[in-house]
């Protein structure tokens, strides 16, 4: 490998050479630059052929939530701007302490004045037969992730050996990528070093519910296969087939270089409080070091180490005193937190709270009235508070009775007010564990002008990684900026500095009538917006000007433009409306005919109680619709930010438990509300009794019939974060149920932000607000209902019928056809 000469001729500054372009190595350089940007000339050697990235985010990359570019911490510009020479893809193979030189595998030699070793860890590979077969990999760097992604593309099965943090994140990612995953764990419970038995069990249940197979007490005997991995055999004889084996059983500090150079090495490279090794010119930091007998495998300690190291390098020594660590699992939808020591013991006391219905388990371990450990499962919001009390060794005797209910409760009120909880955190409480950012740092960066979540992420990196502290950062923004932030911390998109609410307000206030007008008057920074703002503006105008605004087709997502769902192969699916889930022979016959006539490869009963026809070609859509229209069917809007389905159960007409005609009411509601465009999709259900067969309590609007009338529920959804509805009120008649439904829909249509479903909207504005508008203000409710019905008078014509008649045919047919050799069509 060839490199241009690295030593710039006239630079007489001391030369700091860093081995390891990972999290600790680069963070140390960042800390140094922040203290004195000019003191050292810096050269970084990295074994990986890429810039510095956030290793802990490899899990979200594997899971498909992020791309590699999203997780880069310092890009090429950063090295250039700070005059740092980066030698990437060429590991250092020797340190010559006498000559003060390092040499790389590619033969590059570089002299140093100070050397920093930040080589991290090596994954531990259990020495079983077959460990070297192709298809057996570890989970440590981007190359590993690339290999997993390639393997996952072919589907098949994967075995993950190791049920710790890393193994479970690998398993989660692979299973999201479509592989059948088995986790083998030697110990009886998962993540036994971070979780106690109860939490480990809950975790196992949750992962199994997601389709993973988890074998605990599983001892691997051999990895088998001819030429490549084919399976894993356990000591008890079980053979598990596998196309991929991921070993995630632990890590070992990477010390070979240091040991060969004769530095003092124990479990890791031994350093003092200033991160200096046994050679005063050589420092070490990160997972490769041993400090005070401890080695670490998480990022939080690195931040502290890097601070002390940089202080030492600029001769203002502070000294590292070791770290207490906490752990979170980055598997979406499963909240797990642990900190400190929870092995218990005679002198320890446990406080435990379990809420089986909500799947919550919390345990705080006390010793002499101080918190020594905490395990939280299901609700981890108070993790940082317990962790803070633990690190400070605060006396919690006065809080003991309420400690387990969390900070908001313990600090009085009993009402969970997240803002009060955040306000009560001390300045050095850690907000962002991924990037080691404290509350004080976030507040000061807000004070310096970072007035939005994105700005905070950009300036101090809090919440820029796994995002689990986003809520905390938002609360800090709200606290620090007061009302300023309420008016819209998030801009609608990168094209404007206005937030959603500002834009909506201004559209009405200035009576704006078209997308270009909004962009002009609100100083859009792009000529014609982007794929985020255009659909939002189109909706806001359409909602504000029913009957007057002319829809901009080119600002709609393809599904809404073509009134069908685009599939990954470019064909479309078609879902006709089935009122309240009812159908009849004519409709069924029409669907059967369409399936045959257009060779639809699949027809399926949906979760929304209707039939979905898959694999229709774009050109055939108008003809398909014409056939369905002929049988009286209209678009089901299964593709739109619109009213989707109204699910019903059989109700009093047939069911022995039914209290009211839930089916009939569902049909009436669907007849009233179909065709309406919404900020996001909107689903309704009506159940005939509290057994709730129509699942009304996870819908945007749900009705549960009872003997004395109708319970109206709002703000539920399924999806990744299931939210059960809140009870809005109870009414006595069908007509009232319909009226409240219309008023609720209109309130949501007028006030929610585009792509905000009712659940997050209600969480944001509060149920009390919705009640105030719909219950306490009958005149206002009536006005909302009237506005909804007025706007419906324009939107209830079937988009399919128009297309079947030939409208917008250009959306469907190609402009020309070309057959090589022939002339053009």
């Amino acid at each position: 490998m060839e490199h241009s000469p690295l030593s710039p001729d006239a630079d007489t500054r001391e030369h700091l050479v860093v081995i390891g372009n990972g999290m600790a190595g680069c963070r140390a350089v960042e800390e140094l630059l922040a203290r004195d940007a000019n003191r050292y000339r810096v050269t970084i050697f990295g074994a990986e052929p890429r810039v510095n990235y956030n290793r802990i985010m490899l899990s979200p990359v594997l899971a498909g939530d992020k791309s590699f570019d999203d997780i880069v911490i310092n890009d090429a510009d950063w090295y250039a701007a700070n005059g740092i020479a980066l030698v990437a893809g060429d590991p250092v193979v020797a340190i010559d302490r006498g000559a003060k030189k390092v040499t790389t595998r590619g033969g590059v030699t570089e002299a140093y004045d100070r050397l920093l070793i930040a080589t991290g860890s090596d994954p531990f590979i259990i020495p079983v037969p077959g460990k070297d077969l192709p298809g057996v990999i570890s989970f440590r760097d981007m190359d590993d992730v690339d290999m997993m992604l390639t393997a996952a593309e072919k589907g098949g099965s994967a075995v993950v050996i190791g049920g710790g943090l890393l193994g479970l994140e690998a398993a989660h990612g692979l299973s999201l990528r479509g592989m059948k995953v088995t986790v083998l764990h030697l110990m009886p419970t998962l993540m036994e070093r971070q979780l106690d038995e109860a939490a480990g069990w809950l975790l196992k249940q949750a992962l199994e519910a997601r389709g993973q197979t988890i074998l605990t007490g599983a001892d691997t005997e051999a990895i088998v296969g001819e030429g490549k991995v084919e399976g894993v055999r356990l000591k008890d004889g079980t053979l598990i087939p596998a196309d991929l084996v991921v070993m995630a059983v632990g890590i070992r500090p990477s010390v070979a270089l240091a040991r060969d150079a004769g530095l003092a090495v124990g479990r890791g490279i031994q350093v003092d409080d200033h991160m200096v090794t046994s050679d005063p010119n050589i420092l070490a930091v990160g997972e490769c070091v041993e400090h005070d007998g401890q080695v670490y495998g998480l990022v939080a300690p690195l931040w502290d180490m890097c601070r002390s190291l940089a202080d030492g390098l600029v001769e203002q020594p502070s000294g590292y005193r070791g770290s207490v660590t906490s752990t979170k699992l980055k598997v979406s939808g499963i909240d797990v937190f642990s900190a400190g020591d929870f092995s218990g013991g005679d002198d320890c006391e446990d406080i435990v709270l379990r809420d089986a219905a909500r799947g919550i388990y919390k345990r705080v371990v006390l010793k002499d009235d101080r918190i020594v450990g905490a395990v939280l499962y299901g609700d981890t919001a108070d993790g940082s508070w317990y962790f803070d009390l633990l690190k400070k060794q605060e006396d919690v005797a006065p809080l003991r009775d309420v400690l387990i209910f969390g900070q908001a409760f313990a600090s009085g009120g009993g009402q969970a007010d997240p803002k009060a909880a955040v306000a009560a955190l001390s300045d050095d409480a850690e907000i962002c564990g991924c990037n080691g950012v404290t509350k004080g740092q976030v507040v000061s960066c807000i004070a310096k002008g970072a007035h939005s979540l994105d700005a905070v992420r950009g300036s101090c990196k809090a919440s820029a990684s796994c995002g689990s502290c986003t809520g905390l950062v938002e609360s800090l923004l709200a606290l620090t900026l007061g009302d300023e932030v309420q008016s819209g911390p998030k801009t609608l998109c990168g094209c404007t500095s206005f937030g959603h609410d500002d834009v909506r307000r201004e559209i009405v206030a200035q009576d704006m009538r078209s997308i270009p007008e909004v962009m002009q008057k609100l100083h859009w920074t792009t000529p014609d917006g982007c794929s985020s703002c255009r659909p939002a503006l189109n909706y806001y105008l359409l909602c504000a000007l029913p009957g007057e605004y002319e829809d901009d087709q080119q600002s709609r997502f393809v599904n809404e433009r073509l009134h069908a769902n685009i599939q990954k192969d470019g064909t479309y699916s078609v879902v006709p409306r089935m009122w309240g889930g009812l159908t009849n022979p004519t409709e069924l016959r029409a669907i059967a005919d369409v399936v045959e006539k257009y060779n639809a490869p699949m027809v399926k009963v949906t979760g929304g109680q209707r039939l979905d026809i898959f694999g229709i070609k774009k050109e055939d859509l108008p003809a398909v619709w014409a056939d369905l229209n002929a049988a009286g069917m209209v678009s089901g809007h299964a593709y739109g930010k619109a009213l989707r389905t109204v699910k019903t159960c059989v109700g009093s007409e047939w069911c022995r438990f039914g209290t009211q005609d839930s089916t009939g009411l569902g049909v009436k509601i669907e007849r009233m509300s179909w065709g309406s465009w919404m900020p996001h999709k909107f689903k309704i259900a009506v159940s005939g009794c509290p057994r709730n067969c129509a699942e009304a309590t996870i819908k945007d609007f749900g009705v549960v019939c009872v003997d004395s009338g109708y319970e109206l529920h709002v703000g539920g959804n399924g999806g990744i974060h299931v939210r059960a509805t809140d009870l809005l009120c109870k009414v006595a008649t069908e007509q009232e149920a319909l009226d409240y439904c219309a008023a609720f829909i209109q309130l949501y249509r007028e006030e929610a932000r585009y792509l905000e479903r009712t659940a997050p909207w209600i969480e944001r504005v509060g149920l009390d607000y919705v009640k105030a508008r719909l219950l306490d203000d009958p005149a206002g409710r009536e006005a909302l209902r009237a506005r909804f019905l007025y706007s419906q008078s324009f939107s209830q014509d079937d988009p399919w019928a128009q297309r079947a008649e030939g409208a917008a045919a250009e959306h469907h047919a190609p402009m020309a056809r070309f057959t090589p050799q022939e002339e053009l069509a």
Partner: protein
Amino acid sequence: MTTVAEWLDIGWVDQIPVRGSRTVQVADGDDIAVFRTAEGKVFALLDRCPHKHGRLSQGIVHGGAVACPLHNWRISLTTGEALGEDKGCTPTVPVKIDGGRVLICRASVLKAAA
């Protein structure tokens, strides 16, 4: 061998919606997507996103780019390159406007379809 025109005449500019696109079907090959921007410029690309082969013709056109309908990558209409953080490129087809007719380069269509 018969000589065939170097440029294929595919129709009037007006047949392409502003900030929208139409396709040209190519026998035994991927479609060509023909876009018209807000400024009235016309571009042609293979109708195939470099990411996972989404139909670019079905995306939202903004500025000089189109957002793929499948996962929202932004593809430059001039170069075919993915913009921003994404990496990848889709072949472009030269376009010429002559008296309101849209002409696309035959050789490139053949090459893209191959």
